């Protein structure tokens, strides 16, 4: 495969509610920051791909207006996925593999604040037999957590440790939405939100956007001091129905990681798209991550969870740490659908491993 790298990444500050700007206004400065970080303008970009969903924007064809934010004139090569930006990156990576263009722009965004997110996400479920019951996203995650706890391999204290570590890591992340420093032991005194999940086990609801520039081969080297090379990327899906899959493991993550070559080298850092604490524990097991791996140094989705965006941010956070030389090899993960239904794994490396 052709060598493709993340050469720059930018994200907004993620907050509970952005009232004073629409999506186009949120995206423009972040796209500009990603382009300038790569020393590029739109004229250098051969392909643009975005990820978003109409269900959060509250209008059909919402991405059409957002595209105006990048100034697609004269006409550009462009596509859009109704998926997290991590999959927009995947499409751009495929396009770059064809060798006809050298740089691509990826961006993604969501404002969850205008609606009731856990209820909006019920519209994602099987519309004939599950959707009419309106099971909200937190309750479905709680079912998964209960199954995991019943298995006996993890405890509520383990989940609280994930919460405490993530929120305290976020103290160093200026873009994070939710940060605090409290010992895990005290968290178990809190009441359940939806048993066995406590409030700290759940992600914040965030508005936010992200953008990234990818480039191939020498163009990547010319536009980044230390490009973050995509050594492998793969994504896999499972059935949606909760009754036909094992909720306590993530077979699709394991499979994607194998196809992405995750275990061909040492994983130093991993950014996992685990919106709920117990999901990090499931993913660690599926990815065979031991305690030597730095997991979610950004705070992860438990610290900032803009929909359609939190997956691409994981890739951006690993890339940023490779750009900066803190790590030589890392893994980023993105998820979609209820209870980790669909999963993407991306392996990134710096030049001087």
């Amino acid at each position, binding site marked *: 495969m*052709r060598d493709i790298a993340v050469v720059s990444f930018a994200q907004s500050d993620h907050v509970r509610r952005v009232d004073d700007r629409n999506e186009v206004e949120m995206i423009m400065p972040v796209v500009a920051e990603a382009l300038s970080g790569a020393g590029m303008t739109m004229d250098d970009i051969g392909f643009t791909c975005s990820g978003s969903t109409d269900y959060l924007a509250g209008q059909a064809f919402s991405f*059409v207006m957002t595209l105006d934010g990048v100034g697609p004139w004269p006409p*550009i090569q462009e596509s859009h996925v109704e998926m997290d930006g991590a999959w927009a990156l995947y*499409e751009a990576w495929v396009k770059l*593999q064809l060798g006809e263009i050298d740089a691509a722009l990826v961006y993604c965004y969501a404002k969850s604040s205008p609606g009731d997110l856990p209820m909006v996400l019920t519209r*994602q479920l099987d*519309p004939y037999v599950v959707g009419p019951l309106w099971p909200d996203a937190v309750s479905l995650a709680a079912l998964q957590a209960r199954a995991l706890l019943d298995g006996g391999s993890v405890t509520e204290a383990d989940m609280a440790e994930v919460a405490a570590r993530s929120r305290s890591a976020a103290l160093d992340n200026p873009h994070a939405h939710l940060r605090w420093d409290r010992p895990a032991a005290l968290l178990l005194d809190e009441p359940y939100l939806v048993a066995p999940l406590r409030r700290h086990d759940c992600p914040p609801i965030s508005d936010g956007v992200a953008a990234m520039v990818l480039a191939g081969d020498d163009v990547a080297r010319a536009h980044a001091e230390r490009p973050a090379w995509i050594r492998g990327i793969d994504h896999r899906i*499972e059935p949606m129905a909760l009754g036909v899959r094992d909720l306590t493991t993530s077979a699709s993550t394991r499979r994607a990681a194998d196809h992405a070559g995750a275990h061909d080298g040492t994983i130093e850092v991993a950014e996992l798209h685990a919106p709920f604490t117990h999901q990090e524990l499931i993913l660690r097991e599926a990815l065979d991550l031991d305690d030597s791996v730095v997991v979610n140094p950004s705070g992860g989705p438990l610290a900032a969870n803009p929909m359609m965006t939190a997956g691409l941010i994981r890739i951006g956070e690993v890339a940023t740490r490779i750009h900066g030389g803190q790590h030589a090899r890392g893994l980023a993960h993105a998820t979609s659908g*209820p209870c980790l239904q669909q999963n993407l794994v991306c392996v990134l490396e710096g030049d001087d491993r």
Partner: protein
Amino acid sequence: MTKERVAVVGVGQTHHQATRGDVSMAGLVREAAQRALADAAMTWSDIEAVVVGKAPDFFEGVMMPELYLADALGAVGKPLFRVHTAGSVGGSTALVATQLVEAGIHERVLTVAFEKQSESEAMWALSLPIPFQPPMHAGAGGYFAPHIRSYMRRAAAPDHIGILVALKDRGNALANPYAHLHDHEITFDSIKESLMLWDPIRYAETCPSSDGACAMVLGSEAVGDAAAAAGNAPAWVHGTAMRSEPTMSADRDPVLPQGGRDCALDVYRQAGITDPRRQVDCVEMYVPFSWFEPMWLENLGFAAPGDGWRMVEDGVTAMDGDLPVNMSGGVLCSNPIGASGMLRFAEVALQVRGKAGEHQVDGARIGVGHAYGGGSQFFAMWVVGAAKP
């Protein structure tokens, strides 16, 4: 690097209707996918990845429905990808699937596009959203009518051209068993006398709202060769292109959009086409309102600007003309929006494979498939041929 050659080895579609109340969304997509697999002499387990496309999720009231459709589409354990590029999505979905094979990532990819518009009210979904924008029109026809009016003025086109296109496409659909509209009684006068919906667009010059799906199996060169050896001639992809332009730009000409022209020039260059009018045997283009046939004939380089309507009037685009257009009846006769672009791509693939049945163009070797979306701002095209490129 060299791209892998791509072959279309299987094509399937549903019977398109206003309401396919006999099937769920899963049943609808499986109907098309199973026909494509049968055509390719494959089963679900032969497929390595699935690429799904559809227009806005509000049409069915399901957010990202491909997640719920994962098992119905045989995608469990595989990559499942969802594209949404407005009305061009059926075309761009096929192109994303094509790239997976071109890049050497997969050998056999199933691509499916659908819309089940009876689940909602497409006309209002296609209207400017209140309260975000002023309610200036109802339905896509209200948006495009001024573009058509402008075309008629600029090209000095006579009023009856749109009627001729509608008469031709509705006639072509009579030979297509999958088409939604089969109007045996239609005449020039019945179209002319039909209700004026969005002047100059009459009711009978407008696409229907359909439930339907389309699917294709795309394969690598080895897969295409194997199909050919087994007597199932594939269509070979000779070129692919996409272009997008902004909604709000003073530079835009929505009547003759630069994005559409750039897209056509790009795909012809890849396919080695220098004189599309002579070298292309048949075209399936995205014509939701009759007048878009002459407009796109000009935009895609089949006629000089201002002359597209003359090709219609001279019968060039009829089944027995030099350059048949929308042999299947086109969008004017079946419009499950998310699938409409892929249906164009699939129909030209059927033509160059010699498998278009009663609406086959004799000896078709090179076909052009075209889709557009948004406010005439998103374009997807491919050129397919009977011979390997």
